């Protein structure tokens, strides 16, 4: 049945389903958009005429269509997006909206009467970000719904991902866009239906891989860029030009225009990379290209190939900073505009992160509304690996001779330092996280337990997990359960049942649970053994403390306690006074564990998780214990403080 639908689908005779960008279709291409748009910089309105199509790949007729009308989130301060106070317009000119002027099907039937705004998530009647279209006739399995829509999109200000500031335009979430029609079984869904959520202050997006043919007419002093491949730029006279792009198999199409963009290009293997930046940002251009190439190399090697031959990224100027740090697969925006000092790798980090989204929800197109950890968490995890691998010897974010932090620890810090770290489980839809914990949970906590998973199963297995994830789920829509199934299969294949039947015990605690992980080395006690006597294996044994010191026996006990709810397998490294080091393991399940050693040596120090595999442990200070710990750093810090204070008073007191 599915096969026959696929054949039907591929037979759809649309000019747009041909190949211009990639050699063969990468995805099912169930949706596509042909848009002719005109930008009016004065009114900041983009007027478009669009032909959009959707293929019914289910086995049932479908009588309605659902579309995202994202820009309406900016239409008042009563929408679900802005009512939380995250955004408000900068004056009357700042409100944004999208209005459908006309809508017909491909036979010319007027559909504008069958449009209704719905609010499936929260019932907010003032929210008009989801449009339901009751079709006059159902779309039969294998058939294609084709809509002709003319619309006006007024861009908001200030910019939140999308919008304008003066003559800077970042045009995203700007056209009526299909939701995803999910069939039963897909993402563990019980029945077929549309997945089309409202636009929330903390939510991102979800869409089918699509083909886009977009042309934009705008004043010719503007420099424009998009996630599409540039097909042509036509001079229309009257100081106007038309830019034509095509994109294949991407989940969203955004574009930007600003007269002052500087355009730079580089090539990495077969990928043409374009950077749009500002005059100020030019100083950072080399570092930006380097960062994106690091990410291309690392993810290409460890996850799977980057399949598009083009990539555009933007380092927005300060006025357009609100558009920074966002991803549209073959287009993404960095941050910093050239003003971040070079020892701080923030811009590079953002570039690597946003590029990484080309994989984690660009290629593996997960549902960002419902499972934000699946894109932001996984992508932060990879961003941190890349940043710490290429920069600063493991301290990728900041590495000075006196101050350092790794990107991984930066993410971990966001989680462990949050007072609300246990407020909810980690599997909530993006808009359901309480107490402003969306970012902490979706980015920081999820990345932290992914590092912990890597620590447990090993880096090589972790890489294989992602290669398999890519192999199974590229250009499809995986769920969290689907990801876990990949983990379970790969771990079982490579490690048998050494971690148990599957890894569900791990995800139950970190993803579906809200407990914290904290182990403590409570101390070491050493007792001199005076004497003993008794019977061992039928032989009577006596021992009397020797006079010679080297023969004296000691009983050393290393004590560990579990303070948190989460249980993880642990390694413990124990050091003895004769220089011996012993590595022990513990399943971490009980509330305490003692390791005992009898012999002439005495245990003097011990460390839980000496290789820092368990990033999830919220307190690393209580992970080690030494009889006489050396704290040279505190002396040095005091000496420095004394020096700084003496120098400062000599300076400011004339």
């Amino acid at each position: 049945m599915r096969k026959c639908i696929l054949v039907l689908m591929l037979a759809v005779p649309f000019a747009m389903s041909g190949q211009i960008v990639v050699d063969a279709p990468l995805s099912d291409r169930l949706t596509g958009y042909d848009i002719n748009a005109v930008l009016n910089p004065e009114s900041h309105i983009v007027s478009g005429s669009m032909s959009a199509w959707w293929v019914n790949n289910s086995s049932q007729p479908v009588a309605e269509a659902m579309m995202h009308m994202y820009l309406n989130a900016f239409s008042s301060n009563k929408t679900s997006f802005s009512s939380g106070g995250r955004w408000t317009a900068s004056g009357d000119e700042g409100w944004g909206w999208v209005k459908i002027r006309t809508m017909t099907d491909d036979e010319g039937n007027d559909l504008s009467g069958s449009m209704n705004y719905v609010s499936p998530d929260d019932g907010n009647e003032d929210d008009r970000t989801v449009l339901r279209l009751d079709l006059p006739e159902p779309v039969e399995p294998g058939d294609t719904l084709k809509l002709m829509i003319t619309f006006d999109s007024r861009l908001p200000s200030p910019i939140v991902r999308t919008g304008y500031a003066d003559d800077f335009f970042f045009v995203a979430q700007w056209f009526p866009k299909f939701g995803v029609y999910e069939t039963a079984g897909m993402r563990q869904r019980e029945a077929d239906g549309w997945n089309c959520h409202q636009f929330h202050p903390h939510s991102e997006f979800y869409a089918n891989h699509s083909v886009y043919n977009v042309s934009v007419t705008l004043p010719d002093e503007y420099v424009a860029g998009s996630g599409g491949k540039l097909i042509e730029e036509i001079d229309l006279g009257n100081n106007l030009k038309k830019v034509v792009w095509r994109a294949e198999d991407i989940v969203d199409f955004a574009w930007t225009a600003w007269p002052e963009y500087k355009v730079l290009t580089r090539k990495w293997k077969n990928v043409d990379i374009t950077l749009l930046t500002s005059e100020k940002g030019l100083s950072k251009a080399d570092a930006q290209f380097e960062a994106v190439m690091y990410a291309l190399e690392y993810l290409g090697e460890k996850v799977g190939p980057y399949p598009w031959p083009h990539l555009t990224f933007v380092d927005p100027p300060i006025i357009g900073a609100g558009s920074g740090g966002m991803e549209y697969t073959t287009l993404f925006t960095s941050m910093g505009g050239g003003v971040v000092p070079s020892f701080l790798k923030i811009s590079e980090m953002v570039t690597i992160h946003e590029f990484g989204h080309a994989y984690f929800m660009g290629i593996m197109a997960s549902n960002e509304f419902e499972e934000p950890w699946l894109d932001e968490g996984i992508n932060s995890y990879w961003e941190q690996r890349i940043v710490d691998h290429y920069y600063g010897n493991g301290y990728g974010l900041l590495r000075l001779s006196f101050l350092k932090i790794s990107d991984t620890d930066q993410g971990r810090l966001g989680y462990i330092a949050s007072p609300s770290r246990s407020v909810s489980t980690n599997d909530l839809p993006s808009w359901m996280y309480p107490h402003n914990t969306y970012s902490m949970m979706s980015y920081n906590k999820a990345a932290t337990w992914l590092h912990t998973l890597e620590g447990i199963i090993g880096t090589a297995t972790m890489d294989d997990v992602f290669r398999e994830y890519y192999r199974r789920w590229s250009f499809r829509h995986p769920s969290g359960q689907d990801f876990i199934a990949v983990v379970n299969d790969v771990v079982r294949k490579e490690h048998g049942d050494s971690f148990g039947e599957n890894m569900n015990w791990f995800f139950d605690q970190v993803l579906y649970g809200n407990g914290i992980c904290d182990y403590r080395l409570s101390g070491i006690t050493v007792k001199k053994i005076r004497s003993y006597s008794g019977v061992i294996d039928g032989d009577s044994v006596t021992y009397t403390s020797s006079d010679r010191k080297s023969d004296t026996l000691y009983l050393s006990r290393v004590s560990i306690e579990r303070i948190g709810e989460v249980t993880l397998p642990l390694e413990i490294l124990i050091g003895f006074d004769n220089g011996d080091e012993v590595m022990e393991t513990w399943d971490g399940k009980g509330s305490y564990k003692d390791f005992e050693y009898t012999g002439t040596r005495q245990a003097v120090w011990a460390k839980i998780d000496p290789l820092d595999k368990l990033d999830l442990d919220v307190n690393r200070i209580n992970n080690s214990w030494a009889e006489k710990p050396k704290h040279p750093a505190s002396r040095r810090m005091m000496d420095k403080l004394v020096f700084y204070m003496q120098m400062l008073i000599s300076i400011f007191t004339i």
Partner: protein
Amino acid sequence: MKLFETLKKGAVAAASSYKLILLIWATTMVSAIAVGYPLKSFLNIIFGNSMAMERFTDGFDIGLAGDIGRPLGGLMAAVSAGTLLYSFIGLLIMTFFAGGLFRRFTMSWGGLTVSEFLKASANNFIPFLKLALIMMLVIGAFTFIIIGLPVIIIMAVSGRNMPGGTSLYPLWAVWALGMPVWIFVADASRRWIAATGSRKTFRAIGAGFRALKEKFWLSYGTVLVVVLINSAFIAIAFWYAITKTPDRGIMIFLFFLFTQLLVILRLFMKAWRYASVCEAGSSR
């Protein structure tokens, strides 16, 4: 030539007051350690028997900040409060000893015994404190007019964010060229108080300006040269102290000795400025 002569005489005068300068240094060190030592103990208590401070071996690892948790807030508050407290103590100490140093440098010959030095310091303390506060206020106002005001105007006119980096360099250059004037006036005023024994602060400032007017180029040049050398020295000293991260007992001890040596040198160089200004004022 006269400039060089002045600087040389100033240097000789400063060097021959080494006992006084060592006394000042010892006072600053003891009081700074009194503030710094509890902070070290606080940090050691936080870490207890933990070996985690190993992570600070080659520089402060911010990644551990979250693990320290709540006590970190207390530690930061204690450092801030300690620094503030020490700034206040330091102002009193430095003002006090400046009184003795200026007395020493305005004497036509010979030195001061330590008790004479302390007595002179005490005598000049109140007028010097008033003068220091007034001149710090003046320099603050000067900085605001040269840097702060233009920035505010630029921001208001353009409606943009703060102008950054290189665009402010010319303003800072003007500021740097203006600073020796205020420093000279402050020093010359104190010289006047020390030499005349008067306690009238505003008359002293008037005398400072007159001294500047009388021999402007010599006065300005002397202070400019000394301040430039001092600034370069301070920059190098801070660079050294910030970037070096000794991690073993003996190396940390040597680091302590060396940074204290830098403080002594800095105190000498400041005394050199005082002495040179006094020389510039007295030379005919």
